[in-house]
């Protein structure tokens, strides 16, 4: 039987331990560590199937120093709903945080129905989506959060089609439409922002949604040393707006001090390589237009951002 290790003093330990089997430069493992350490030891984690689940719990080892439960790919929000209901029944609901976490596929696609149910019923749960923009665990297939133009194994580049032809499903807006009182985005390039948002979310009763952009060197085709840099360039180019929406109102945006052309973000990534060929010129312009639209929509360059 595996030995159960409980930390004597959780403050001395990361609640998410080293020794898991994530790839070098994995943005998701970094994101998960930041989330959990911000949430603290009185947290129950429910994990959807995906990379994070696989690389942290290969029997008989575990990277988690908090109670952690994995059931299936699409049901994490429903399992979390049951966990939260049971805590209420036991009178422990005020004492323990419940965080449900999954990747972009588990959140935006296969787990979307159960996520919507969890939001709509108003469970006191923080949902964290680690968005690496494709099904990385199964070998880089397109998800509903794969960005326009990205090449994946199911949205490949060919003579007729240049990568993914659709844009990212706007999950933060969908969460807001459910009346979720706290919705935020961030990236692993900004650990302080991430930790602040997790703590703020957990101080609010009801459902909360945080989407964290987590670069994936394997799936994005970039050098493992570039994870943080790309997570920052995604924000600075306007491709991935970092925002907070509280009770339906946009309350903060991470402003862009110096607008970066999307080329700087896209070029180091093999999944966008075709955009820099003559055939990809139109697509590249469209990606820039999408970034500009984000900047306009959220006022990322404006003077009044919170």
């Amino acid at each position, binding site marked *: 039987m595996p030995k159960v290790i409980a930390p004597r003093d959780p403050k001395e330990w990361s609640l998410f331990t080293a020794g898991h089997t994530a790839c070098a430069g994995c943005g998701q493992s970094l994101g998960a560590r930041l989330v959990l350490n911000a949430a603290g030891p009185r947290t129950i984690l429910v994990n959807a199937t995906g990379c994070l689940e696989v690389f942290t719990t290969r029997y008989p080892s575990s990277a988690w120093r*908090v*109670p952690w*439960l*994995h059931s299936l790919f699409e049901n994490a929000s429903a*399992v979390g709903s049951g*966990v939260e209901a*049971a805590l209420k*029944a036991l009178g422990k609901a005020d004492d*323990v945080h419940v965080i449900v976490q999954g990747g972009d596929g588990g959140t935006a696609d296969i787990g979307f129905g159960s996520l919507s149910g969890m939001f709509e019923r108003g469970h006191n749960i923080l949902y964290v989506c680690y968005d690496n923009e494709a099904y990385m665990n199964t070998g880089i297939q397109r998800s509903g959060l794969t960005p326009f133009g990205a090449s994946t194994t199911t949205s490949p580049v060919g003579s007729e089609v240049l990568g993914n032809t659709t844009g990212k499903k706007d999950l933060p807006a969908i969460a807001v439409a459910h009346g979720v009182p706290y919705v935020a985005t961030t990236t692993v390039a900004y650990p302080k922002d991430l930790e602040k948002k997790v703590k703020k979310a957990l101080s609010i009763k009801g459902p909360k949604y945080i989407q964290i952009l987590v670069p994936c060197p394997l799936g994005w085709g970039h050098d493992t040393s570039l994870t943080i840099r790309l997570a920052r360039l995604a924000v600075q180019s306007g491709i991935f707006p970092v925002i907070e929406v509280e009770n339906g109102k946009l309350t903060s945006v991470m402003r862009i001090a110096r607008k970066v052309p999307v080329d700087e973000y896209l070029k180091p990534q093999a999944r966008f390589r075709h955009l820099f060929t003559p055939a990809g010129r139109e697509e590249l312009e469209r990606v820039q237009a999408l970034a500009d639209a984000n900047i306009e929509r959220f006022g990322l360059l404006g003077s009044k951002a919170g």
Partner: protein
Amino acid sequence: MARTLEKTQVMEGSRAIAASVQRCRPQVIAAYPITPQTHIVEHLAQAVANGELKAEYVKVESEHSAMSAVLGAEATGVRAYTASSSQGVLLMHEVLYNVAALRLPLVMTVANRAISQPINIWNDHQDAMSARDTGFIQIFAEDNQEACDLQYQAYKIAEHKDVLLPVMVCVDGYVLTHSYEPVSLLDQDLADQFLPPYEPSWALDVDRPVTYGVMLGPGEYLEHKYVLQQAQKRALGVIEDVAREFGTLTGRAHGGLVEEYRLDDADVALVGLGSLVSALREAADQLRAQGIKAGVLKIRTFRPFPAEKIVAALGGVKRVVVIDKGYSLGSGGILGMEVTAALASAGVPAVVDRFVGGLGGRPIPASTVVRAVVSPELPRRQDGFLDLKPEYLGEGD
């Protein structure tokens, strides 16, 4: 004893089942509507709304989420309940395996119903049969009194430390769920005496952090399934013990794994599941009146499959007639195959007829059973199907 059993009253099956579930004091209920199960969870919702049952009721958006929510609740250390039927059980399918493999002793009532296509809301056993390999214990009720009594027994079996497996209480949709029958409920004190508060053997606990639902590779997965099989086998004894204890406490016995009727001197044994057994009893009486020594073996517990009990009960008969309400297309009646396999591997020489009837709610009256025993030639030629109507069959059929 009379003091602790409530007065017999005529109640709708679903209402009586809900009242029995309520007396089991589930702390979390998650359910999704589907005919003919819905009345059960409606009554429970009302009990919660009235403050008669102190439970969290999670109104989920699908059956998949219903089973997932009770999985999460049980994993957090509370007694949980759900109910479903037909497509609902199928939608839950992958979660059922999870619940059993995580050793979560929840109880689900299945109001047994046919499977689409064609859509059909009436009774057969295809839904439960589709879940036979999931690790759930499956027990079939013959009447509403048994359906009620099984709810208490199901939790007691599931939560037994030697078992720790979920239990599916199978109740024929409409035939039982919507029928009014006299039933006697346990009063709360007696229910509490029989079924004490749930003490989980494991739970998600921030003071004792443990990782559940991990990845096992080829080096360990096989052993995990062996361990589950051993729990199923231990359940064979526990189910009998629990039924006996319940019988002592209430004076009501419905059998444990199987129940025999007029089998002692029988030449022909009629075998079935659920409410059909009542028709089999009637058919046995009619056959005996015609000079054919017939008896009945009610298979009460389908999972774990009580092969030894079946062999012991049927070892002396010349002929076995199994009537299935579940069919494996491309193969045959499912109970029939399992009974045949049990008898064959024990060297019992009886001739076994594997008939199927009642799919999609077609009634199986005693007369159909008698005819199948006396004139088996036609159904034997028609893959075991009973009472086929030629006007609906094409020329090639």
